């Protein structure tokens, strides 16, 4: 207790240092005066009395020192003293300080900026109550639909009926909520407003969705279980963002009627500002509707189908219940539910029944589709920025070493005078810490700007819609990361100069002058340059590999024409169309657009390339029926007449979809080369029949084979898969609930010289029906290039960081060479006096420089192979050990090194021998 009190007194004592010194001085004075007075009374002369008093008091300075040490906390005070000293020294070298802080800021800023993304995409939980209690069904993301009664690997998507079975029987969850796996768009307009409908992303949620997340309303109320009953008055909840941006936070929005796909619903509340739903994605939902409103709003209701699995589940576990026990219970429930539908199951589903199982995984981060998508991308960027930071450290360490060399004499003098080694080491370390913390502070500003820029490019948001819910402004974990990175960086580049400081021999101070006997300090500096060269090579070759991969992606043979093609995307479903009305609508849209001057032809389709396609199984007439484990999958597209000519995909055999294919003529299909090879091998597919069911049926007759075109249904590095194209006129319009009936892309071919304003396309569609929302119009080239946004950003960022690292490495090489040449000035003088030519001297210096670079390349080369492997899937099939790229990187590095060493070499060669020999 007493010790504690004393500690606090000492801790705060430095505020009163000056006062205390004065007080002690006064007390001593008084003491001596008392003693002197007494001595005088004893008969001594005043002078002698004073002298005796002082003698009796003892060593004044030693006493003061003890007093001071007792008074405060000397270690803390000297730390502050050292920091002040270091600050003064840095102020005296403004260029060095500015250059170092800026370099550090670039390195720390780049790393922090990528970490902001890593934190948001890979680490962060949803902004909901106690995210650690949440568990979701499924280990992987299997968006968006599964049909039938079996799922491969794991049962991760469920139908509404199966959800209710889980919800009502699983005791381990206090709440189990459901929402669709895929994202939906609603055509929304406020009732009574004459303006055209806008499409907004939204989702259907179970009645307990908000309660499960622990999310209360910002205004109004949230959806409850009572709203999610069949026959309940249809309601919707709006996002805070939309309420603010589109309706100016107008309170009258709550309680008013909005039309969703032309169906009236009452908006009952506003979600709180930070809430972005269950999934981090670039288009967070703006509306939440109860699941039971789905049949009312959507023309193709999924809610009532037992075997259409489209819902994700997230539940909040009860306290004390382990996820493993819930999992076990749900597995039993799954089997019970499947067994109760045994009669409806096909033989394939029945065969797969024993292996059906499910898994729970932590659900605090929600549905992590973005995590899966961006993980590797972010890892690469994190690695790249880490390398940049290492190079920055090496550069700054180099600068610090030079400073350390300059301070050598001072250091050795301090040591000779008895300075403790600890204090001597501490000085450069404190200096590096101050520098790196300053660099970190500036770096946070750079990170903020950088993150905003990257977000803008990586997750472009459509005008009027919300962007991805990633905040560029630094949060607590980001600040902590920047702080720790700065500290680690500071130690990393401060340790070498510090170690050098203690190795200083006190005798050097006595020897004086710069004629040092050792060349310590050059070896660590050379090592750093070698390291920089190696890392630069790795970054440059990574940048080269990624650029080459992007190049091959963008310039591949797509199998369709990109010039003079426009694509307008619409959604007639959002205007409340019924399937029976669609065929006529398409015809009218087609004719309306085709009559625009400059348009040469128009076709509508479900998906235009490089978008995907719908999936289906295929069975060929005359071939044995495919077994349950055979791969008979193909994707397909629905197109109007003349589509292949409009998009520019050549027909290799037979004919394309044309006007002669009508609802009443025989059903036909055009297949691509991959389809022909997969299902017909060497046989001629023309005139053959295939069907989309498991049992062989002759549903479609093949009338043509089209060249493979890139429809990226899978990863970008997969070759073109099997695909077939069906005429729109032969669609199953009698079925009322097929999503594939709603064509969304209008492909427009324009004349070679014509320019068609986008507004005239909008007008042409509005002339048919102003209620159809057009979500985007762009050229086909833009549509293709937007598919590679991430790849382009990765390649550009890596190139940028590669260039930065090259610049830093060149500065490092220049520094070491210039310094080395400077130290060898005597030697150069002697050589020249003995007859060496200038050329020899240039060679001498260059040889030293290139030795370092070669060594760096030697170390960097194997690293580039390792990194090439790590880049892996981001290279889209291009060779990760591309010798051309590595060679180019090495050449660029070599050239920069040459430029960086030529200057000091020529400067050295221009020294006159006399001057060189005279120099100290």
């Amino acid at each position: 207790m007493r010790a504690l009190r004393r500690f606090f007194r000492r801790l705060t004592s430095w505020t009163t240092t000056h006062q205390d010194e004065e007080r002690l001085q006064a007390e001593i004075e008084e003491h001596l005066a008392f003693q002197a007075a007494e001595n005088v009374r004893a008969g001594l002369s005043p002078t002698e009395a004073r002298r005796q008093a002082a003698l009796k008091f003892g060593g004044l300075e030693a006493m003061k020192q003890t007093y001071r040490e007792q008074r405060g906390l000397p270690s803390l005070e000297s730390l502050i003293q050292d920091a002040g000293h270091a600050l003064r020294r840095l102020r005296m070298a403004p260029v060095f300080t500015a250059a170092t802080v800026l370099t550090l800021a670039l390195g720390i800023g780049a790393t922090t900026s990528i970490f902001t993304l890593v934190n948001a995409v890979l680490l962060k939980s949803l902004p909901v109550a106690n995210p650690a209690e949440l568990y979701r069904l499924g280990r992987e993301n299997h968006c968006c639909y599964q049909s039938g009664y079996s799922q491969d690997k794991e049962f991760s998507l469920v139908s509404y009926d199966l959800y209710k079975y889980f919800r009502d029987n699983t005791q381990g969850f206090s709440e189990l909520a459901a929402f669709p796996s895929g994202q939906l768009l609603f055509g929304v307009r406020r009732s009574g407003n004459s303006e055209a409908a806008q499409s907004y992303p939204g989702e259907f949620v179970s009645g307990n969705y908000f309660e499960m997340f622990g999310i209360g309303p910002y205004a109004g109320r949230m959806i409850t279980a009572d709203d999610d009953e069949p026959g309940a008055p249809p309601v919707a909840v709006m996002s805070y963002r939309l309420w603010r941006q589109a309706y100016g936070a107008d309170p009258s929005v709550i309680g008013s009627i909005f039309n969703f796909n032309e169906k009236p619903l009452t908006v009952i509340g506003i979600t709180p500002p930070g809430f972005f739903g269950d999934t981090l994605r670039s288009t967070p939902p703006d509306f939440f509707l109860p699941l039971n409103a789905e049949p009312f709003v959507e023309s193709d209701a999924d809610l009532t189908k037992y075997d259409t699995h489209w819902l994700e589940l997230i539940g909040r576990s009860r306290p004390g219940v382990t996820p493993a026990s819930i999992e076990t219970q749900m597995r039993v429930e799954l089997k019970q539910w499947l067994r109760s539908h045994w009669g409806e199951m096909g033989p394939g589903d029945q065969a797969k029944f024993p292996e059906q199982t499910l898994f729970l995984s932590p659900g605090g981060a929600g549905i992590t589709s973005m995590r899966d998508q961006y993980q590797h991308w972010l890892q690469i960027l994190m690695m790249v920025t880490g390398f940049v930071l290492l190079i920055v450290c090496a550069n700054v360490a180099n600068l610090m070493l030079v400073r350390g060399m300059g301070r050598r004499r001072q250091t050795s003098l301090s040591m000779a005078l008895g300075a403790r080694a600890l204090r001597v080491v501490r000085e450069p370390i404190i200096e590096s810490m101050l520098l790196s913390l300053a660099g970190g502070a500036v770096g946070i500003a750079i990170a903020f700007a950088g993150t905003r820029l990257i977000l803008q490019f990586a997750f472009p948001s459509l005008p009027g819609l919300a962007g991805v819910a990633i905040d560029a402004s630094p949060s607590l974990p980001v600040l902590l990361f920047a702080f720790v990175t700065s500290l680690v960086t500071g130690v990393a580049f401060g340790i070498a100069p510090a170690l050098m400081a203690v190795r200083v021999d006190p005798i050097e101070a006595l020897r004086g002058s710069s004629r040092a006997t050792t060349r310590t300090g050059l070896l660590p500096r050379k090592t750093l340059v070698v390291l920089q060269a190696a890392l630069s090579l790795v970054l440059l070759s990574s940048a080269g590999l990624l650029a080459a991969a992007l190049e091959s992606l963008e310039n591949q043979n797509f199998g369709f024409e990109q010039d003079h093609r426009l694509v307008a995307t619409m959604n007639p479903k959002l205007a409340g169309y019924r399937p029976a009305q669609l065929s006529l609508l398409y015809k009218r849209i087609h004719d309306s657009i085709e009559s625009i001057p400059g348009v040469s032809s128009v076709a509508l389709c479900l998906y235009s390339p490089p978008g995907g396609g719908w999936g289906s199984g295929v069975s060929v007439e005359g071939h044995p029926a495919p077994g349950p484990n055979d791969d008979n999958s193909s994707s397909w597209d629905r197109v109007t007449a003349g589509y292949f000519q409009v998009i520019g995909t050549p027909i290799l055999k037979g004919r394309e979809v044309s006007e002669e294919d009508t609802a009443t003529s025989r059903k036909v299909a055009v297949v691509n080369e991959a389809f022909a090879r997969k299902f017909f091998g060497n046989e001629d597919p023309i005139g053959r029949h295939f069907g989309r069911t498991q049992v062989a049926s002759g549903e479609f007759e093949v009338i043509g084979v089209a060249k493979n075109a890139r429809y990226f249904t899978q990863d970008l590095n997969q070759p073109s898969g099997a695909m077939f194209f069906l005429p729109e006129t032969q669609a199953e319009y009698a079925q009322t609930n097929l999503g594939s009936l709603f064509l969304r892309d209008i492909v427009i071919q324009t004349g070679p010289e014509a320019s068609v304003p986008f507004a005239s396309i909008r007008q042409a569609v509005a002339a048919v029906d102003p209620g159809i929302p057009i979500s985007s119009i762009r050229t086909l080239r833009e549509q293709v290039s937007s598919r590679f946004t991430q790849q382009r950003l990765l390649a550009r960022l890596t190139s940028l960081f590669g260039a930065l690292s090259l610049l830093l490495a060149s500065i490092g090489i220049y520094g070491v060479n210039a310094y080395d040449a400077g130290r060898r000035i005597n030697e150069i003088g002697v050589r020249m006096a003995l007859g060496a030519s200038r050329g020899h001297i240039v060679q001498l210096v260059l040889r030293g420089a290139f030795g370092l670079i070669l060594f760096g390349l030697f170390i960097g080369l194997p690293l580039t192979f390792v990194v090439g492997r790590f880049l892996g899937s981001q290279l889209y099939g291009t060779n990760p050990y591309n010798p051309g790229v590595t060679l180019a990187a090495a050449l660029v590095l070599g050239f920069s090194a040459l430029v960086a060493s030529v200057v000091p070499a020529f400067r050295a060669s221009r020294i006159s021998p006399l001057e060189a020999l005279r120099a100290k």
Partner: protein
Amino acid sequence: MKDKTAVLQGTLALMVLKTLDVLGPLHGYGIARRIEQISGDLLTVNQGTLYPVLLKLEQEGSIASEWGTSENNRRARLYRLTRSGRKQLRAETKGWEQTAAIIGRFFAVKAGDLK
């Protein structure tokens, strides 16, 4: 004797406390004189060593100090015992007496006494 100063300081602290207990508020010189009178030569050479001890005791809260006037009208810093200092003195006196008694008995015992 590495710990000589520590031992000295500990002893001095106790003497300071006892002095203030007996004589009441007193300035540094007065404390030094009193200790000198009673202990003989402990402080004869190094009166100055008293001040770090006074500081430590004050930091611990055992004594308090303020500027005042001495008996012969000189300005002086007067130290006085605090309540916690009195408690500490009592505790340490007891401990010191016990230690002294034990050590005393130990030295009094002769080899033959414990047969």
